[in-house]
């Protein structure tokens, strides 16, 4: 797939508490409401002006901290389909794949991408294109790709369970 969108760029070690504050974890349970609080404690302008298709770019260790899946869900519900970072904290990486958010680990692209520019990500050929040039990123393993293509872990598993029940 080709994703094209405007960039929101942040720094290193953006943690889950600033992406989706802990105080909302048991009070905001409707995924549709989660987008309203996305990145609230690092960038209060994000939730107000994010557009479907926008791309979030972070530095190293994006999403460190809590295991809360809402830190992925809030971006997905805001219309973000791709996250590019220098590195992604391990639970966040899993949550991204499972939540249908394409995680792109590409330090060179992060260095080159400018805030606000429109960039393109090609998930078939593993390339990021921005004003400063084109960068390739490592392929995802086939099993992770299958989860993303199914729209996330739960849709994939649902189809699999339905399939095995028929047999």
């Amino acid at each position: 797939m080709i994703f094209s969108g405007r960039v929101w760029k942040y720094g290193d070690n953006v943690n889950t508490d600033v992406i989706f504050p802990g105080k909302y974890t048991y009070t905001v349970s409707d995924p549709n409401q989660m987008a309203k609080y996305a990145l609230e404690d690092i960038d209060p302008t994000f939730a107000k002006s994010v557009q479907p298709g926008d791309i979030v770019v972070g530095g190293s260790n994006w999403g460190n901290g809590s295991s809360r899946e809402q830190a992925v869900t809030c971006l997905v519900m805001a219309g973000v389909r791709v996250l590019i970072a220098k590195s992604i904290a391990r639970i966040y990486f899993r949550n991204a794949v499972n939540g249908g958010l394409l995680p792109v680990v590409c330090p060179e692209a992060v260095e080159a991408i400018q805030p606000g520019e429109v960039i393109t990500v090609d998930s078939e050929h593993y390339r990021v294109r921005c004003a400063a040039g084109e960068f390739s990123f490592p392929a995802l393993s086939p099993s992770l790709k299958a989860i993303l293509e199914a729209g996330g872990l739960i849709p994939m598993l649902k189809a699999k369970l339905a399939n095995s029940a028929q047999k």
Partner: protein
Amino acid sequence: MGYTFAEKALARAAGLPLVAAGQIVDARPDVILSHDNTAPIYETFKKLGISRVKNPEKLAITLDHAVPAPTTKHAQNHAEVRAFVAEQGVSHFFEAGRGICHQVLSEEGVILPGELILGADSHTTHYGWFGAFGAGIGRSEVAALWATGELWLRVPESMKVVVTGAWNPGVTAKDFCLKLIGDLGVDGGIYMSIEFHGEAIESLSLDSRAVIPNMMAEFGAKTAYLPPTPAVLEYMGKRARRPFTPLYPDPDAHYDAVHHYDAGQIEPMVACPDSPDNVKPLSQVAGTPIQQAFLGTCTNGRIEDLAAAAAVIKGRKVAPGTRLLVIPASSLILNEALRLGYIQTLLEAGAMLGVPGCGPCMGNHMGIPAPHEVTISTANRNFKGRMGTTEAPLYLSNPAVVAASAVTGVITDPKTL
């Protein structure tokens, strides 16, 4: 070439003779942990189109993140968890007030040395204190585990941290963790299994051992491990309701990185706002005014921590303009602290006592600071906004420093009292 702890533990959990770092395996955890987040996980589970959890005897559920329920919404969430537990026949359920999941599951022997626990909580690394492989996962993954009993895991590379020598008085496992995270950064152990070896690690009490793997969530680690000592095996053996086999890495296992520390060179450390790796020696931040001191959490809410705080505070008072909040990590700890007189000492000094649970650690309730109020806490995490407002700076330290700071109203080295 031998095998690391992570390789051995995931080979066991995947039912394979051998696995190596980098390999992706389908692992079958012995225990699947969730807490107050069980209700939203159940909502996700229902989307799978099946009605029964595959292995209810493997589920462990605590109510701890907001207990007792601070709002109707939280109470509703708890009610949904209880209904799920009854409906599915969940074996290991611990009510509000019993304590924080990681402490309670340790006390109850729900998970044992050499086993695999996956939990919808980032501090599931905790169980390395007795040699279990613990890793945090997302809510959807827990729903998937309820349905199938297995989940893909990448076998992590390993880092070895060797701590030799002897600890100086007043220096704790917490100070060592802050030193390590400060030296190598909050991503210093990203994706890795961190093994802790050496005589200084072996010399730690059981309570102190638990601090280390708990804090490794703040190091980016997938899991963390301390080789079980005879004292650990005795503790777990008394609680175990099934046989278990502790795992030890081979002497010739491969480590991607090895770090050496001399325990005698480590001094009390403090993590400053807004990151657990913004670490300074206590001597450099002493004198910083605080309004709240918080003693508790899965990191430092055990009996040894309450004892250290009580020893500092005995015969003293909490400073005017300062609050000391004490929340034991479990009901057993609270009981023991009552028996030993620590609670009385703390209350006589002017402390507030909370119900065993997570308390204000992640900003839910029971001790949220006002904007511009400074908190020093024994917790593991001091991210911006962590305790409810981005305007309230958070410092992290060991329990004696928290207690001493409560007495003076400024960050204080207990030795100077």
